[in-house]
């Protein structure tokens, strides 16, 4: 399970990889949160283009990071989600939060 984190002009981009389930969501959460709390970005981009599988643990991961970036006064964007991942995201109604899912 990989997450490649980079920063540019206050924007934090997390390129996720592999499969996101309960087993590896915890480690991802820790590495994203510790970076975000150190660098205080005003925008967080979660890039799912290298993620082959995600279950509802990924929804918990997105929702928790949404709360975190809102606390920092920033925005969250979700990009690169496959059709399977988009279906899971749709079930959670994340678009209703005004979350950008591309």
């Amino acid at each position: 399970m990989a997450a490649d984190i980079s920063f540019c002009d206050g924007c934090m981009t997390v390129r996720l990889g592999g499969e996101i389930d309960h087993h590896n969501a915890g480690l991802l959460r820790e590495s994203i949160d510790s970076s975000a709390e150190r660098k205080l970005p005003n925008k967080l981009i979660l890039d799912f283009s290298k993620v082959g599988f995600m279950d509802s643990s990924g929804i918990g991961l997105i929702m928790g990071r949404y709360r975190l970036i809102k606390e920092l006064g920033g925005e969250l964007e979700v990009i690169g989600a496959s059709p399977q991942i988009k279906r899971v995201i749709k079930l959670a109604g994340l678009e209703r939060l005004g979350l950008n899912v591309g």
Partner: protein
Amino acid sequence: MEKPINEMRLVVPSRSANESFARVAVAAFVSQLDPTLDELSDIKTAVSEAVTNCIVHGYRDTIGSIYINARLFQNGKICVKIHDTGCGIADVKQAMEPLYTTGGSDRSGLGFTVMESFTDKLRVRSTPGKGTTVTLEKHIERRTHD
């Protein structure tokens, strides 16, 4: 009762590393019905949710056995039973409500919602103190081959 054309049983301890093993093992077994990639990923997602529930809720502070039974039928029906002998659910109806969770702030409470919408039929039987059985059913479109 209808007889399955093939059957698989799998028992794994409730360690989270087995979430991916369980969903991939079930997917590999049902592949012989020649499902589409979408059908296969629906099954993987539903199995992943059910197995995660056994680990996070059924055996919350302990390690127990997760029993998985998958049956394939002539008409393309797949039936996957996922059973634990953990703490059980007092109120199944409440547990199945979207967004309801007892798992803390990073659990979405969508496990049963995902199982329900990614399969054709979901049955949940639970006895507090005895355990929970989740049965997932999905119909695979039979495709004709030349």
